[in-house]
């Protein structure tokens, strides 16, 4: 029995190890959450590994027992005992119901806590107030509005490294899904509704962002860069934007709203009053997950 436990122990460890190996192979030069650049993505990755290791407890025994059974009870040698009517055993029955049940209790407990912990709506603990960004999904581009700075950028988003970002998201077209894989998970954007996402980049860097929900011909090209910079660089960038870039007025908006793949990111030095809420309200009868002024319902 003790030998058995030791064996399982080794196996659990080696599965975990194997998994880490596979993860590190994919992590090399990878831009998925498996190569995290922020606390959320990191927590997601650790959560994933935890599940795999716990699940190994029910999976590994099968991988050992199955080949053994096939070998021992093969017809040719008639080596194992043959009991064609053997059909039940209480101890085994308790084990095969009990073990998965215990595993599910453990994983379920963990799931419950992690769901709250890693809820994208949950504000991130930090000393600073989060940077507010409003994102609008269009075909096939992302518009980012910085309400506090009153500027906007398209297919490029500037955030501050080490400071939480709070995205409010909606769609000016079909449903899409917003994601910056190295920073965290994704959330749908829907016309007439607002969803939210809190993210944090630990270090300065460039991270790929995209829409993950198929939305037609330009889908594969709907990508953007998230640039995490220092607060000073961010402020300098914002000032430069306000000073030198054209306004995002109704004419510019009309152009953006047409389906197209943009050759390069765009910037706007000012934003028409109430653009974000206007896009939402434009779909009359829409029902926001959040009030138009940004507070929760």
């Amino acid at each position, binding site marked *: 029995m003790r030998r058995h436990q030791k064996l399982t122990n080794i196996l659990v460890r080696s599965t975990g190890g194997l998994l880490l190996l*596979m993860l590190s*192979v994919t992590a090399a030069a990878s*831009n*998925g*959450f498996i190569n995290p650049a922020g606390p959320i*993505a990191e927590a*997601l990755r650790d959560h*994933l590994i935890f599940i*795999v290791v716990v699940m190994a407890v*029910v*999976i590994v025994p*099968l*991988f050992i*027992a*199955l080949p053994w*059974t*096939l070998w021992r*009870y093969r*017809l040719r040698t008639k080596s*194992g*005992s*043959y*009991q*064609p009517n*053997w*059909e*039940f055993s209480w101890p085994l029955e308790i084990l095969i*119901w009990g073990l*998965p049940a215990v595993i*599910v209790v453990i994983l*379920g407990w963990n*799931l*419950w806590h992690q*769901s*709250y912990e*890693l*809820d*994208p*709506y*949950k504000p991130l603990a930090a000393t600073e107030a989060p940077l507010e960004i409003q994102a609008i999904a269009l075909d096939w581009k992302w518009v980012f509005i910085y309400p506090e700075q009153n500027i906007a950028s398209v297919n490029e988003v500037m955030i501050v490294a080490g400071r939480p970002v709070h995205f409010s998201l909606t769609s000016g*077209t079909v*449903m899409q899904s917003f994601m910056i*894989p190295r920073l*965290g*998970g*994704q*959330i*749908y954007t829907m016309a*007439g*509704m607002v*969803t939210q996402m809190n993210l944090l980049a630990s270090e300065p860097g460039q991270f*790929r962002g*995209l829409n993950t929900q*198929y939305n037609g*011909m330009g*889908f*594969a090209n709907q990508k953007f860069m998230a640039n995490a910079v220092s607060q000073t660089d961010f402020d300098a960038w914002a000032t430069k934007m306000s000073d030198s870039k054209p306004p995002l007025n109704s004419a510019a908006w009309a152009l953006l709203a047409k389906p197209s793949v943009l050759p390069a990111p765009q910037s706007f030095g000012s934003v028409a009053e109430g653009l974000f809420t206007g896009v939402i309200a*434009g*779909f*009359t009868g829409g029902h926001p997950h959040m009030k138009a002024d940004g507070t929760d319902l």
Partner: protein
Amino acid sequence: MGTLTPQDISFVQTFENPVMSEFIDGAAGSVLVLGIIIVTVLLTYYRGWKTLWFDWLTSVDHKKVGIMYIVVSFVMLARAIIEGVLMRYQQSIAVNDPGVLTPDHFGQLFSTHGSIMIFFMAMPFITGMINYVMPQQLGARDVSFPLLNAISLWLTAAGAALVMISLVVGKFSTGGWTAYPPYTGIEFSPGEGVDYWIWSISLTSIGSTLTGVNFATTIYKNRAPGMTLFRMPLFCWTSLCTSVLMIFAMAPLTIATLMLALDRYAGFHFFTNDLGGNMMNYANLFWLFGHPEVYILILPAFGVFSEVISTFSGKTIYGYKSLVVATMSIAVLSFTVWLHHFFTMGQGANVNAIFGIATMLIGVPTGVKVYDWLLTMVRGRIRLTTAMLFSIMFLITFVIGGLTGVILANPPVDFAVHNSLFLVAHFHNMVIPGVLFGMIAGYQFWFPKAFGFRLSERWGKASFWCWSIGFYLTFMPLYALGLMGAMRRTVEWFRPEYLGWLQVAFIGALLLFSGFIFLCVQLVSSVRHRDQRRVPAGDPWDGRSLEWSNSAPPPEYNFAVIPKVSGQDAFTRLKEQGQAYVSPATYEDIVVPKNSMVAPVIGVGAIGLGFALVWHIWWLVAVSFVIIWSAVIARSFVTETERVIPASTVRADHEAWLAQVRECATTPREQEDTSTNVGRAEVLA
């Protein structure tokens, strides 16, 4: 006619716009047209039309209906696999390169591939399998409503025909197999594509609802005397669960597609962005169907594995009651988890957590089943036939899919891998080993029963290795790609690190395709050498349930005398007690349903109706509608729907067969795959 113009014909498009993507499309259309021409010529040459019409198309015999379902499924499988390989090819060359397929063509490919695989490959396959096997296992002569059964078949076939027509006439949807609005609404997807999806799916969903009613009734009402519910083979139990799921789960789909149709045709606003429409309702309706659907597909496969593993281990199933309980729990729980398909829609942590935990709960009965199958082999005498190999590979591979399923059940992790190739890998990891391997195993297992000769084991095993290795090569890289942030439905990539993984996946897809080719070769080769492979006595594998107690192929009435059942593994019991192959004391007249042309007429009407709706040809809509309902009304005036086979004929046929069986030498299990196996099994000790 309607909105149909000559430019909609795929060959005209290829001619006018001769680029690679169009050539591929044109070639696919040509293959289809050519195939139809070849079949027509062959049928005429061999004078097969009459046989086709009287013996098959108008038949309401559950066995023939079942076989026709599986034929439809095979044809559709061929197309959908090729599409899968084509997509894998495109993706493997499209790293910083547009590749060969246009985004529009690629969009149609994943939509037809997904829709076909689910609705026109997997569904007909399981429906056909249940149709063929379940009544025989129950000791019944047919399903409860034979004509309804044929009508269901024809509704499904009509849906499949519409998808095939879209290859030549017009385009298919690019909205995926889920067809989420508002993208599939008229504003963002004008044109016929989504309409093809809507009508083909609506037709088949109605067919499946009727099938569910039919099967459930059969299982409740048509069992042989003594065949209590807890003596039924497990395949019947899983069929019952699937039927119940069909009854409850297909309706939301039918409703959702019809509501989408109202949006598109009549300016309604159920799912539009504006005027009060709300696509979230569609997502809920669709997955209220969609999740039970995966269990509709996989439960019958679980049933097949139970039969195959028990038979080829020469042993009764371990934990029969526990398997029944597990199956039933899965069926019930499958209605409580649909939200896990859109954890990312913003409903908040508590709702997500509840559905996540409900999803994980399904892991318990599923885990139990896996171990029950393992324990069924323990203390048995295991023979690694093709059917058994597929079942074992299922066990191993399915466990990995289960693991990734539990991973996806965690909302936080799902936020990171939703919509990614990780998800694509996960569901293929369930449906290929689960559903497809199950159906292939069932096909290998029951083929000799249906056609009277065994399939070649050599080609079967070649196919098995291709399917297995091909599966791992194709789909394991997709897990890695998903973790690396590669998303599904993507026609072109911009990350060089994806390239190697995608190339491996393409090679794997070629192997999968070879697996399919070997299945075809196996069929042809076995047909050619059928005389050495015949099993007239009907029991080539030392079977345990009643379907093995009659001849191969069975008479149209299945059982000359309805068997009396005294326990589980009914046929094994008879063999052990020396009661198998004994002449019954008396014979009685047998009443069987007459052939009917109602079902094919409804089928043709349904194709016409669907096509006319897609192309807004309103007069044809009216005509088809009238045809369908005239057939139904006319049928209600037919009073002589049954035919009597006199007792003397039954006696003559059955006694002749029994005499033949008694002459047959019994085959020990070691010689299962030799010509000595004529279908009479030596009792294993």
